[in-house]
């Protein structure tokens, strides 16, 4: 069974925000809400700047599900964490519980009211008939029901952002870092990927 996950390769992300734009466009996300965003650390420091694209990570043990007072979250059979907007009361508990800041709240009201929570759906829609107008308006496009993967990952130009079956994208990433070639200079590299091929020292220069 597939377990849907995202994986962002900080060595490849060039902070182009293509994933953010793809998500906005594909799901027609309301004003003031960004389901995905790019976070940059050491901004402007030459050689140390790294970017990573962050959205809902569809946790295996999701804290948002645990804290929701109206139990509007559910997890699909393929591991995607979704919620029912008809039940959501916009309390914001999930926002505080989430370590990634994934839950977002539209603030378009005249009195600064907090609307119903909106977050990344892994392009899997929500609890409305699949591919229906109602589903699109509330949750965005249901690409999984079309046999497609999230628009952000498929749009990523450098393929820094991988999305899909956890085992498959882990295989892609493992092959990538093995080809990239690193070794003891990266903590835990040998543990994760084994010794360098042929007993040769790693040739990678970046760490």
């Amino acid at each position, binding site marked *: 069974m597939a377990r849907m996950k995202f994986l962002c390769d900080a060595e490849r992300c060039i902070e182009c925000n293509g994933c953010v734009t793809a998500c906005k466009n594909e799901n027609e996300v309301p004003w003031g809400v960004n389901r995905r965003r790019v976070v940059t650390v050491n901004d402007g420091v030459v050689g140390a700047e790294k970017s990573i694209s962050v959205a809902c990570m569809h946790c295996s043990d999701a804290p948002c599900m645990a804290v*929701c007072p109206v139990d509007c979250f*559910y997890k*699909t059979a393929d591991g995607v964490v979704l919620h029912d907007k008809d039940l959501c009361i916009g309390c914001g508990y999930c926002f505080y519980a989430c370590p990634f800041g994934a839950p977002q709240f539209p603030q378009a009201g005249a009195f600064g009211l907090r609307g119903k929570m909106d977050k990344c759906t892994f392009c899997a829609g929500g609890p409305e008939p699949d591919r229906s107008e109602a589903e699109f308006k509330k949750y965005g496009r249901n690409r999984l029901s079309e*046999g497609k993967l999230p628009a952000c990952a498929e749009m990523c130009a450098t393929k820094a952002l991988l999305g899909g079956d956890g085992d498959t994208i882990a295989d*892609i990433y493992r092959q990538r870092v093995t080809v990239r070639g690193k070794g003891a200079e990266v903590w835990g590299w040998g543990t994760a990927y084994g010794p360098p091929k042929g007993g040769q020292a790693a040739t990678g220069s970046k760490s």
Partner: protein
Amino acid sequence: MSGRTVVAIVAALGLVALGGCGEKPQASSFKQGKYQGKPDTPPWDNAPLAYTSNSVNKWTKGDQKSWTDEIKTRNKFQNEYVRIGD
């Protein structure tokens, strides 16, 4: 105060002091939310589109395994080592 009373008081104080050594679990246990909303249909309960990434072997409506295979096939397109070779 008799010797027996003193011993009893000391023993009682000892028991009270030992009570401080007891430890209750500090972390609350995780409680999985019980979803109360509307049911959702799984993605494999939809007919495939006219064009899919695996147009030769499209998934069968209602068959989870064939849909998963379709997704995994599409997943592998994200690996440029496979697309363009090593």
